[in-house]
């Protein structure tokens, strides 16, 4: 709370000043006259070399050891430039005198490091381009200590002749010298290839290369070290640092196109293991620059990779291809990974797994992006994010692709290259405003580019942060394409009354004189702040600068340094702030203590469960049936329904499985084995079970079973018909005639005496209308004649119940204490609803309990007394906020539906708001594929790019539409406060993915209920992609009704996949959680606090 108030105060400080956070320093004043101008002609352009517009980099380091950070810029075609910092934002161009302009050729990235260990920073320049290999030899400018440099790349054996993007010097084997990773790319295009064959090829020019430093020279150990060097790599970004906190530096490489990114874990024996697929759910598709830093101040490094998704509706509509499921599957079948076109923020889960939450963080769309830098620019203790962007020509414009190119080609003369060149000249450059995101609490980011003074529109590539005037804040340097470089002075230090700066300079007497690769963590006021002292981050750029911490406190408690050579130092004494420290790697050394083992786990995973079959999905692709829907509704199984049939203190439970799977009732014995319950036989496996309910239908004191069936695709009389089994002395007898024939796609049945005549009736909620989403389905009220014979209620009597909505879950509770329970309903595109029985009818009394209409994609409800105040609160699970859907009350997502093309099926038109205006979600091709008459209205992409729903359809058609609306997607706790349900936020992690399963249990035996959740949805349309950031979630009740996330490495609960159900079970000794995962095996966890039960 205190922190929050201070933050607000701090923000007010900045908003109050007329001066923006950054001030642009004109080159006339700074003398930083540098433009990366690239020529274009028929033989030199984006078609002859596909990375023609990638631009140049920036290096910031103190080359003359005068305490001021100097700057070096790479230019692709013109000479590179070296500027010496003369103080007070004045620079002197000493390129010619220093001999650092580079050779003819195509220059790309720059890397700074003291390669020869003499205490002077050297410069390594990468070369690429469709040129002779000798023109591609990378250069190593050894600093002679007198502002002259000599290229000694060949001497050291690292004049790599590949198509290089960037290089990183780092000590991978902890021997106190800097080894070298050279990031390369192919200049040929591979769309048409045999993947398995290509992956086996070692390509010395396109493949990445790794060199070990042997003191006097380097030796290429690419293959021995386990580095992938196939021709498919299109490396655009690399960061080397310790990612898994084992003290050794790992590597993340971002790759353009179909080859996915690489994640190399350091094996501590001069080799790496690439393990992206096992630790990441999905990654950026056209990955560009990246940065790695601890964004959430938990001491673990997070990874942010860039892609090219634009923010505006207009540019998205001009860019998107229709979702192509075969193409995507083809990518997976060829051994490539899940990749989607957007920036990805991979949050480190501290246990060898990452959660991708780029959309939750609002960092996903920054258009053609190059450099990303994570740094605390406003000095509030949280790292912010800078992203540079822009592109030489708008070549992915779909109108260009489909129409303009061919039209122009027809009228052009000359060679093919000349014609292409002439076409290219007519394509506009993509000049964009760079993004600078402020981090608020909890990984939520907001773009502040214009407020903070970064509103210039241009094409920006490499960038660097460095404190150029030693005033303690981070100034920004950006290398632009065909435009003068940007120099932004940061004004934070001048106005900062919130935090104090701690400047740390790391040094070593070893050959790694800057101690590059070391990690510093500062502890203060129960917070920790971590920075990695690494030279290469962002895009084609490099910095060696002091580490700058901004601590919102008077002092810090301790400083921990994990040195690159494996040693560890700790300063335990209070360091008063502000402060500047120079620390050598021989100071404050401590022995590294082993990580204490966690002995306080809540859950422990049991052995495999041989009795339980693996759940299997049907192979249906729902998008082939209704191409405009957002997710596959046919992948929502399995489900578990538990009870104690024989009152022996041991759970029995029914497992709902899919079509063609044998279903059964099971029980759990005292050896924790799950075994089939003897009194149940299912002969017909055709049904698609969704849910079930155990209840006493015939008033004979035992529990009968009603099973709810339903499908999305291919509905027929078998797979949808619900079933009823009468319990006859412990044996379940199938009674098809006890219930009516129906063909509804059910979701949940709940038993209660709905007509108050003394027997148990059934309300069966329906989830959807098969193949006709989002038509509101009919739900069923089945009335009991007292003997277990059910018939449909008269629709005129129970009108309120018939078309409630797309129901997902139901619950009963006597909320008004009148002795009759209220029915609570959750569903998609609807608010939570409450129905009450009075005057012999059920009435919608939602308004009496909820003050605002919160319409969500609710999936599960759990009733729990969180604060032991003896009234039940509601946990309602929702879709979460980590997807492209981000509705608000003012800007909801909507679905307009009608059979517009009269093909007797509903056409669901989804809309959402982009920058304040409502637009359809579907791309032009997707919409006109469904509604072919619109092809005439939108003959091209530009015509559709700004179309809103009222421009697309006629008034008559608009009148035909029904509309559903959702304005809230957060999983929420509704706290019961004097008979009103008030929304109360849960920890942000609950919104990292759709929550589709919830269970309540007291995990720590403190008498307060804790929450177990599971979720993720993989089967979304391609553009939405897998939402897989959760691995199960444990929320511990702080005994006041507030919940704290227990991370996987502390809770013992960690599962991959789409968790669809969590069910608490018990035998006579213990309690368990049984987990049902879609298309996967069941998992059993023991609740450890019940050991002594």
């Amino acid at each position, binding site marked *: 709370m205190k922190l929050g108030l201070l933050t607000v105060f701090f923000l007010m400080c900045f908003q109050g000043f007329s001066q923006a956070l950054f001030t642009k320093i004109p080159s006339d004043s700074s003398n930083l006259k540098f433009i990366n101008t690239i020529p274009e002609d028929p033989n030199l352009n984006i078609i002859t070399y596909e990375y023609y517009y990638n631009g140049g980099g920036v290096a910031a380091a103190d080359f003359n050891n005068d305490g001021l950070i100097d700057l070096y810029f790479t230019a692709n075609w013109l000479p590179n430039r070296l500027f010496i910092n003369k103080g007070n934002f004045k620079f002197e161009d000493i390129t010619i005198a220093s001999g650092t302009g580079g050779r003819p050729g195509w220059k790309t990235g720059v890397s700074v490091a003291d390669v020869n260990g003499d205490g002077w920073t050297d410069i390594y320049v990468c070369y690429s381009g469709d040129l002779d290999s000798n023109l591609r030899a990378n250069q190593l400018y050894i600093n002679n200590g007198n502002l002259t440099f000599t290229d000694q790349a060949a001497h050291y054996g690292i004049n790599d002749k590949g198509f290089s993007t960037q290089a990183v010097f780092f000590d991978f084997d902890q021997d106190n010298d800097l080894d070298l990773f050279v990031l390369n790319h192919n200049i040929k295009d591979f769309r048409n290839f045999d993947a398995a064959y290509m992956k086996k090829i070692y390509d010395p020019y396109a493949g990445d290369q790794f060199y070990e430093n042997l003191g006097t020279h380097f030796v290429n150990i690419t293959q021995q070290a386990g580095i992938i060097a196939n021709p498919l790599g299109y490396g655009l970004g690399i960061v080397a640092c310790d990612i898994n906190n084992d003290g050794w530096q790992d590597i993340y490489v971002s790759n353009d196109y179909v080859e996915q990114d690489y994640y190399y874990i350091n094996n501590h024996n001069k080799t790496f293991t690439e393990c992206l697929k096992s630790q990441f759910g999905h990654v950026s598709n056209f990955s560009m620059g990246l940065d790695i830093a601890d964004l959430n101040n938990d001491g673990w490094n997070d990874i942010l990779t860039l892609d090219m998704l634009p923010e505006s509706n207009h540019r998205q509509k001009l860019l998107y291809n229709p979702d*192509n499921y075969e193409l995507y599957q083809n990518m997976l079948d060829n051994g490539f990974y899940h990749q989607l076109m957007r920036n990805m923020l991979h949050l480190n889960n501290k246990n060898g797994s990452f959660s991708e939450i780029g959309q939750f963080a609002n960092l996903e769309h920054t258009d053609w992006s190059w450099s990303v830098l994570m740094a605390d620019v406003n000095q509030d203790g949280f790292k912010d994010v800078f992203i540079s962007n822009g592109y030489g020509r708008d070549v992915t414009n779909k109108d260009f692709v489909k129409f303009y190119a061919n039209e122009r080609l027809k009228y052009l003369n000359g060679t093919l290259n000349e014609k292409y060149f002439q076409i290219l000249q007519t394509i506009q450059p993509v000049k964009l405003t760079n993004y600078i995101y402020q981090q608020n609490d909890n990984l939520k980011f907001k773009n502040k580019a214009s407020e903070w003074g970064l509103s210039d529109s241009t094409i920006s590539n490499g960038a660097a942060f460095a404190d150029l005037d030693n005033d303690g804040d981070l100034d920004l340097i950006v290398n632009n394409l065909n435009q003068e470089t940007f120099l932004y002075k940061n004004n934070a230090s001048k106005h900062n009354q919130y935090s104090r700066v701690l400047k740390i300079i790391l040094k070593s007497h070893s050959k790694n004189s800057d101690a590059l690769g070391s990690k510093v963590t500062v502890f203060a006021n129960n917070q920790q702040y971590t920075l990695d002292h690494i030279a290469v981050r962002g895009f084609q750029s490099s910095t060696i600068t002091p580490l700058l911490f901004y601590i919102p406190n008077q002092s810090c408690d301790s400083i921990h340094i994990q040195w690159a050579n494996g040693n560890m130092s700790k300063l335990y004494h209070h360091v008063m702030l502000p402060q500047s420290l120079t620390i050598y790697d021989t100071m404050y050394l401590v022995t590294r203590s082993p990580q204490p083992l966690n002995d306080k786990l809540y859950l422990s995973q049991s052995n495999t469960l041989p009795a339980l079959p693996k759940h299997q999905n049907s192979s249906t692709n729902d998008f082939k049936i209704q191409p405009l829907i957002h997710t596959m509704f046919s992948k929502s199984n399995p489900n578990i329904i538990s009870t104690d049939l024989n009152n022996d203190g041991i759970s029995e439970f029914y497992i709902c499985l899919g079509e063609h799977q044998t279903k059964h009732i099971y029980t759990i014995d005292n050896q924790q084995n799950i075994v089939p319950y003897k009194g149940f036989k299912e002969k017909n496996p055709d049904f698609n079970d969704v849910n079930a309910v155990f209840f006493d239908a015939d008033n004979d004191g035992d529990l009968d079973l009603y099973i709810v069936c339903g499908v999305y695709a291919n509905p027929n009389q078998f797979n949808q018909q619900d079933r009823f089994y009468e319990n006859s002395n412990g044996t379940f007898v199938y009674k098809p005639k006890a219930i009516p024939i129906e063909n509804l796609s059910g979701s949940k049945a709940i038993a209660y005496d709905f007509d108050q005549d003394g027997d148990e009736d059934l309300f069966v909620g329906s989830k959807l209308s098969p193949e006709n989403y989002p038509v509101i389905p009919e739900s069923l009220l089945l009335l009991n004649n007292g003997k277990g014979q059910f018939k449909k209620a008269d629709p005129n009597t129970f009108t309120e119940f018939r078309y409630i909505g797309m129901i997902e879950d139901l619950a009963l509770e006597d909320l008004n204490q009148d002795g009759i329970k209220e029915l609570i309903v959750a569903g998609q595109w609807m608010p939570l609803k409450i129905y009450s029985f009075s005057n012999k009818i059920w009435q919608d009394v939602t308004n009496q309990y909820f003050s605002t209409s919160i319409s969500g994609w609710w999936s599960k409800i759990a009733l729990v007394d969180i604060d032991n105040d003896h009234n039940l609160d509601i946990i309602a699970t929702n879709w979460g906020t980590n997807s492209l859907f981000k509705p608000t009350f003012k800007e909801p997502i909507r679905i307009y539906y009608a059979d517009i093309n009269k093909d007797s099926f509903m056409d669901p038109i989804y809309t959402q708001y982009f920058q304040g205006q409502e637009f359809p979600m579907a791309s032009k091709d997707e919409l006109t594929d469904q509604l072919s008459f619109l092809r005439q209205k939108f003959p091209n992409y530009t015509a559709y790019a700004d179309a809103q729903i009222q421009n697309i359809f006629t008034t008559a058609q608009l009148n035909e539409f029904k509309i559903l609306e959702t304005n809230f997607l957060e999983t929420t706790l509704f706290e019961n406060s004097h008979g009103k349900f008030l929304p109360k936020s849960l920890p942000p992690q609950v919104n990292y993915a759709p929550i589709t399963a919830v269970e309540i249990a007291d995990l720590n035996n403190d008498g307060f209920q804790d929450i177990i959740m599971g979720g993720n949805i993989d089967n979304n349309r391609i553009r939405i992609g897998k939402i897989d950031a959760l691995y199960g979630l444990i929320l511990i009740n702080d005994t006041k009704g507030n919940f704290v996330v227990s991370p996987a490495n502390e809770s013992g609960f960690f599962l991959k996949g789409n968790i669809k159900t969590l069910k608490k079970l018990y035998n006579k000794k213990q309690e368990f959680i049984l987990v049902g995962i879609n298309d996967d095996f069941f998992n059993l966890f023991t609740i450890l606090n019940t050991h002594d039960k």
Partner: protein
Amino acid sequence: MTNKLICFFIFNAILFFTKAQNRTQDYAESLKKITDVMVYDVTSPVAASRNYAYICLVANEIYNLNPNKTPHHLSRKINNFPIYKRTILSTDSVNFNLAVIISMYKTAALLLPSQERLHNILDSLKNKYVIAGKSQEFFASQNLVDSFLTVFTEYVKSDRFQQLSKYPRYTPHYGAGYWKPTPPAYMAAIEPYWWQLRPFFNNNLKHIKTKPPAPYSNDKKSPFYQLCNEVFEVVNSKDTFKQNIADFWDCNPYKMNQMGHVEFGTKKITPGAHWLHITTILCLQQNLELSQMIYIHAIVALTLADAFIATWYEKYLTNRVRPETAIRALMDPHWKPYLQSPPFPEYVSGHSVISHAAAIVLQHVFGDTIGFYDNSETDYGLPIKYFSSIRAAANEAAISRLYGGIHFKDAIENGRVLGQKISKKILKKINF
């Protein structure tokens, strides 16, 4: 340049500048302008065949509303055409030659995405008449067309095209012998339910049986492997003579060119458009009257449309793999066809079916021995080509797909049989 000169020469040599020939020339030009719009819009071969059929059909029906001519109606001979009373359509002051041209653009504007381009052409036509003081003639003709189209639009709407969206999108079948999306764009299969459309002549095209394709096999001695080998060898031989033939008949409405992040489509006419253009060439060369020209174009266009429906039925009945996919799996993982594989199943060859179907109709009109210069593809950088007979052109169009590496021989041969059967039935039905 030479191409254009030759082209000019041919047309001058065979045409006399009479009024009648101007009219046929106008018809040809209008059809060409509509073709250009279809090419611009990227129209699939099947969609193009439907467009041409309606455009040529309307032109024919409009021309035959002329009370002073012996009518060559087709409307009574095709499926479900609405009965309309000629008497309700006013033909006073109508210039029927002009009405035909107007009807073509108006029908095209009903069907094509870029209707604005067609409206622009019509506007400039109107202005010509207005400036020449012939407004009444223009508007009377246009009114006739409009009244006819109100009836005709309903007919178009009932062909089930608008309802195709209700069918599930295509899912490739599991197994090596079945069609899979092909590089470079891996486009989804085009129009898997096209065979649901109402044919023009044959009530049930499914009843025209075609021999099944050679079954998929990885046995080197199997007929299928032999067929693969044949495609493999032809393409690998890099025989320029054969490559030229493949190029000439490529008729790919959208070829994707990809160079890194830069990509764009280049376009050509569809095979149906090519054969309609051959029809135009022959009509002009033989100096046919406008009425005959319109009639023959309509029959050829409707035949092509039916042939495409039958082909698409066979394609999505067999779902056969393209040579590109099969050869990569069986023979050479790096193999590429000479042409880009079209995005739909292989069997039977559409080129073969529709070329032979059109050829049968054209031979029926012009005989077996007539030679002609085919300049259909000059706009797309291809030469003018002389064919000694209609049959020779059809044969070459069919075999070009083998040379292009995108069809097996059995799909070509059995396609020929199917195409010939279709048009023979049509000729019989219309008593032509």
